[in-house]
């Protein structure tokens, strides 16, 4: 009986290991898994209402670059009876439905990198958006704790490397730290 159980256990272990090996391919974190909407909402959350117009122009209205089909019926869900607003630009397909068949995940091409760079530079240099970012995390001084908090805004549950922390602590202002964090598409890997 015991031998039989051992045999069953062995096979269960083999099965679990195989399943794990197969599954590991699926959950690899080596490519962006955020689409145009999630990138937009994530950055708005980080940089506040003052960033909204810029982020809308560069992310929400450009689904081709960031992936994720737009929802041609999105406005229907947001319309409330009697409120008279039929079009909500944040859910509307920006190109009259052409983006409704896009893939969810697309690799970032050069133009996307360029736009991310420029957007993040603006967000890092703009006093209002930078202030929002720092105040939301209750940080002001540059020290090991605060740079870790800034890092974890983009990479939650992850501890930055000592090398990065040292480099960040050597900066005279928050702008290059926040810009640098924002510029890498790797936070979009989830």
């Amino acid at each position: 009986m015991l031998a039989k159980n051992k045999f069953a256990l062995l096979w269960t272990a083999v099965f679990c290991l195989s399943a794990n090996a197969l599954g590991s391919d699926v959950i690899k974190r080596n490519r962006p898994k955020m689409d145009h909407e999630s990138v937009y909402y994530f950055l708005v959350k980080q940089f506040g209402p003052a960033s909204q117009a810029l982020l809308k122009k560069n992310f929400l209205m450009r689904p081709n670059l960031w992936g994720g089909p737009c929802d041609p019926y999105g406005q229907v869900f947001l319309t409330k009876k009697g409120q008279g607003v039929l079009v909500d630009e944040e859910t509307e397909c920006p190109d009259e439905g052409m983006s409704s068949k896009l893939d969810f995940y697309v690799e970032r091409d050069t133009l996307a990198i360029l736009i991310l760079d420029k957007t993040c530079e603006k967000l890092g240099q703009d006093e209002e958006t930078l202030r929002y970012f720092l105040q939301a995390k209750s940080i002001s001084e540059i020290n090991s704790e605060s740079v870790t908090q800034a890092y974890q805004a983009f990479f939650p549950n992850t501890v930055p490397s000592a090398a990065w922390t040292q480099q960040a602590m050597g900066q005279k202002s928050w702008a290059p730290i926040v810009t640098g964090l924002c510029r890498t598409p790797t936070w979009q890997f989830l």
Partner: protein
Amino acid sequence: MNTRRQFLTQIFGMAIGLSPARALALTAWKSALGSHFFRRARAAEGTLQSMESVAEQMSYVQLNLSEAPSRWLFDLILRPTRNSPFHPHPYVVDRFDGKKFSYAPDFKHELGLPLVWQQPFRDSKGQTRTAVELLPHWGSIRGVRMLREGHGFNNRRIVAPHPGGISITGLLADRSDRPLPSIGWAKRSGGDQTATLAFRSEKGSSSVNIPAGIGDPFEFLFTGVEGGPIGDSSDQLLQEIETEIRQRYGSIPDYQSKRVKAKILLEHSLASARAEYQTIVKKYLALERQIVTGKHHLVNSHPMPGFNLEQLRNPNLKQRDLLALVGPYYYNGDMVLVNQDLTKSTEGSYFKDLPYQFALVEYLLNKKMAQSMVMGMGTLENIALEAVNVKTLPLGAQYDKVKIAIERQSNGSAWFDAHNVGTVPNFLHTSIFFQVFSACLVELVDNLKANNLFDSTLIHIASEFDREPNNNCAGSDHGIHGNTTSFLTGKLKGPFVVGDIVLTSEGSDSIQKAKGTWGHGALNENIKQGFLTYENINSTVTSILGLNSLTPNKDPLMERQSGLLTPTLPPGRNVG
């Protein structure tokens, strides 16, 4: 690397008892054998192998004539030679001599060319040119069967032969290192279901789709990147994060090299780039204006009257004969073009996107910014029409008793999908389109040659099918049994026309019988499957671009000989 065929030969050799070395020798022997049996396979493999080396540099420009215009006005050569038999059809015409329409190609330039080819225009340097100059690097495949109905379905299959599957544009984008791996420009706004939307890559590359009617695409493409290159104060921190992520999760895409390219892209300010682009736009706009408003298009020398309403006075005219009488002047359903000289109706017309599309292609190719471009070519807009509703027309004795209401429309658009467009407006509007189109093509090719880019660029002129004329001349239907594809590249040895077509195709009902020669594909003993299909075109495009074929069971129709692309098929015949 061995091809699949070589691999199978080796396996076969080993299976019949040969040693691996001998099996390899068998492969070599087979390759050396010049028999007809192996010729085609070798050609296909040779094409692929020899082109792989140039694939990195090859750009793809598809000029997509969605909604399927009458290609016989330009690149569907219905009479390749003087000896090609031809059955005329009153709807299939290429010229108007002031009295009658006819199809009378000119044979001065190796092939029987429709009149559009020979229409002179002045290029940007003031030289008089014609589209005939394209011929040395132009080749066309006709009589290609699409097998199924549907505009969108077939148009998407030009780049993605399996519905929803990987597209040629996607494969190319995956191999591209350019800032914009793929671009599509839709022809019509709202649900444009053409090749531009069929983009699908294997490795997650993206395509930028420019909406129709946008006019200047520069703003759309480069919004968000204004203001010169980004400062580098955050570069080190950024690279540290990516190094860390790479260590933690394995390989990640090389964003750093993309950033370097992005900086190069912005080396010159966007304002100067825009100015450069606008200069190119002006060149194409001038060409378009010259042809649409000038004396250069092939009908301007003759007035082209609309339907003469006086013909309705004929007391013997019966209602059932009316459509045959007004058919050639039919326009958009029930309307009939009347009275005016129709050549005047286009004096205020224009092509909204076309000059910008050619300018964008030229700019992006010159700057090596894009690898694959699919441009949905728009039709003539703002046509001033005078028309009457055919249902209200009084016949015979009624003619003088009823006042005929003439509708005047100042902003009509031409229709490629000419189901209800008679011989006269179809000829007029489509001819003007092809004149502007071919003149822009000459200008584009000039530029590519001047910048040594012509050899590394494949220009593909495509539509979802051709047009099958109706015998009442009131329009044409989807010619799914005959589609034309034209290619232009510096590596192509032209001109050539391949693909057999039938002399007279027959429709299914009495009115459709005996349609004359319009391009219906014929059975062909040179093709192993019997007739050409869109899959052959697909294999041809992928082989030229050095990509793996998405339809490997169908042979490419071109091979490389002494470095030049030549057709694998003999010259096209008209049979039947």
